[in-house]
């Protein structure tokens, strides 16, 4: 049993919350008291229909306004998998929330309302999923009950989406016709959509292969903390604690410490105080080196045969998340893994229209929810990979040092 983290992209009108409610309900993950609580609030109880959308709206303001403001996390499992749903709002003013939810997702479910077909919002959600490097995209064509379960309508939407996806650069998409409200093809196979021969949504979620999503070729280990007990019997103990974000580390491997470039070998690997011959992503471990080198939090230990880039100048595509505009020349703290360095945004190359992917060259500034490509210079070198090649070491955040807020999600190009 492993974990699949996915995001659902769509708005309330597309039936997103109903879809999540349906997944939880039909997989028997909702408890009686929770069901009773939403029955009380459901408006259409006389029709015998529970408003499953109420399950996901956690905050008072969300229930009052009938909208999703922030990312909510929901959990369910089946005998084969544990699922973590990042339920993010779909409207354009919440782009940053979708980016947040997408950043930790292996898979994106993109909802299309069968009555409306591919709309601007569909494209925006697909662009965000693509830019955030989500490898598995499944398009659910919802509300099939409202179009008489018509194969023709479905086929038209599939072909429209495929055209849009090709323009964005998305290579592989899975399509499933569903009705979240009626429960068609969510957990149980639809009796109405007999022309559809593929998997139901839950079958797809249970079967999609995730093993290859973790990179085991490029060892990266950001040091989080140095363990030095300094007791009588452990006087010389010096272990580097961290999580292997990619790759495999073996005893005696030749390693390089970055950004200093000092070389050494792995003397010992411990996983929860037990010595191991090797360890791999995403394990949290303690590494010991043969030579006494100066290593502290923020350094990265990598395999000498598989070096990342090390530098101070690079380009990133970022999603701006603050009300205060991004203006070239602004300085921020850049955090990549456990390393924080001062940085300056030198220039904004272009802004990406999040609905069309069209590039607007050299905008004067970046605003809330904008996706822009910028040039960044850091005060000292960082070790990084390109986001598209090795996501886990190509992502960073910008922090405003005066407000301490996280103001941008960066994907290093």
């Amino acid at each position, binding site marked *: 049993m492993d974990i699949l983290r996915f995001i659902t992209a769509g708005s309330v009108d597309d039936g997103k919350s109903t879809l999540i409610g349906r997944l939880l309900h039909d997989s028997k993950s909702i408890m009686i008291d929770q069901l009773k609580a939403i029955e009380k609030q459901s408006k259409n109880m006389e029709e015998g229909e529970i408003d499953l959308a109420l399950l996901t709206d*956690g905050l008072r303001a969300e229930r009052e306004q009938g909208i999703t403001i922030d990312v909510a996390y929901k959990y369910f499992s089946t005998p084969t998998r544990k699922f973590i749903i990042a339920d993010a709002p779909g409207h354009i003013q919440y782009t940053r929330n979708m980016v947040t939810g997408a950043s930790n997702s292996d898979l994106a479910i993109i909802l299309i309302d069968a009555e409306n077909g591919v709309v601007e919002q569909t494209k925006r959600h697909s662009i965000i999923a693509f830019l955030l490097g989500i490898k598995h995209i499944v398009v659910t064509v919802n509300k099939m009950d409202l179009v008489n379960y018509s194969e023709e309508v479905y086929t038209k939407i599939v072909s429209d989406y495929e055209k849009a996806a090709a323009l964005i650069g998305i290579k592989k998409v899975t399509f499933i016709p569903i009705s979240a409200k009626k429960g068609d093809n969510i957990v149980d196979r639809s009796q109405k959509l007999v022309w559809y021969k593929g998997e139901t949504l839950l079958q797809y979620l249970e079967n999609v292969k995730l093993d290859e999503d973790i990179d085991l070729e490029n060892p990266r280990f950001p040091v989080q903390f140095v363990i030095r007990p300094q007791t009588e019997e452990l006087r010389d103990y010096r272990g580097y604690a961290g999580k292997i974000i990619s790759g495999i580390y073996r005893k005696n491997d030749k390693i390089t410490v970055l950004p200093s470039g000092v070389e050494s070998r792995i003397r010992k690997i411990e996983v929860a105080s037990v010595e191991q011959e090797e360890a791999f992503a995403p394990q949290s471990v303690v590494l010991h080196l043969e030579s006494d080198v100066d290593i502290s939090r923020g350094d990265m230990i990598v395999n000498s045969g598989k070096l990342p880039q090390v530098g101070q100048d690079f380009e990133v595509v970022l999603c701006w998340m603050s009300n205060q505009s991004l203006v070239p020349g602004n300085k921020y703290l850049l955090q990549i893994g456990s390393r924080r360095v001062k940085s300056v945004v030198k220039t904004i190359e272009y802004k990406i229209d999040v609905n069309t992917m069209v590039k607007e060259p050299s905008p004067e500034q970046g605003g809330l929810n904008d996706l822009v490509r910028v040039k960044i210079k850091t005060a000292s070198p960082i070790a990084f990979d390109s986001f598209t090649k090795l996501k886990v070491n190509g992502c960073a955040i910008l922090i405003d040092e005066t407000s301490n807020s996280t103001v941008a999600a960066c994907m290093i190009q």
Partner: protein
Amino acid sequence: MKSKHHLDFLEQLESESIHIMREVAGQFEKPAMLFSGGKDSIVMVHLALKAFRPGKFPFPLVHIDTGHNFQEALDFRDYLAKKLGEKLIVRSVEDTIKRQNLTETKGKFPSRNGLQTFTLLETIEEFGFDACLGGARRDEEKARAKERIFSVRNEFGQWDPKLQRPELWNTYNGKIHQGENVRVFPISNWTELDIWNYILREKIELPSIYFSHEREVLDYNGQLMFVNDFIKIEAGDKISKRKVRYRTVGDMTCTAAVESDATTIEDIISNIIITKTSERGQTRIDDQVSEAAMEDRKKGGYF
């Protein structure tokens, strides 16, 4: 075929939690770990052992004792801290009530849940804690489902759900201003069942209260409340001896027991798998006050 370089779901959750704890150790000057002697905080301690041994924990264990805690949980709290040789700080709500002239909650089941916040904030101030690790899970309650893993609180400990920092990838921003502090929830992504499965796999020791035992309880609309000095017994109350266990361990005044014959972790897990009621719904009186009970408490500085 799964490759040998593969973690199952519990190993993945474990590694994620250890990573978060080490981020706290790396980013903060004066962190603390809240520890009550309940199952979630016992799992937290177990994870901290994996994160920091052979070193000492880079934080003390802190318990805010409401005065309404179960003796079994308090005994276990002291036993575990002593066994591990880790520092334990206990601060009492009783003292805060006296010092600040606070008014006790009234009613049949007078909960000190709200008052607990005062002691927590006092303790944070007394020691200058800049981060508090807590064992809350997102599956427990819908306001918790919205909270970040690093949850920044203002100087009054308040949570503002609309002003949360975006939390991207596994990159945690723990930068704060003087006086603010961060509540950190390393087991956010664990469910109740994950916790029990982990306890089983890791053979983690628990207080006896989690297993079936005989206890005098008051049947209050189906909720089995332990008969103790802090709740008001009235004429007509149905009191009987029942075989029960606790599914969660909070205050005696607001935590209900469940009828059960489960004497092993395996029994408990099969109980939970077939149960039809949520953890907090079945055992917590305090969340049933209103639709947004937890959201309101968090906005007021609660964990």
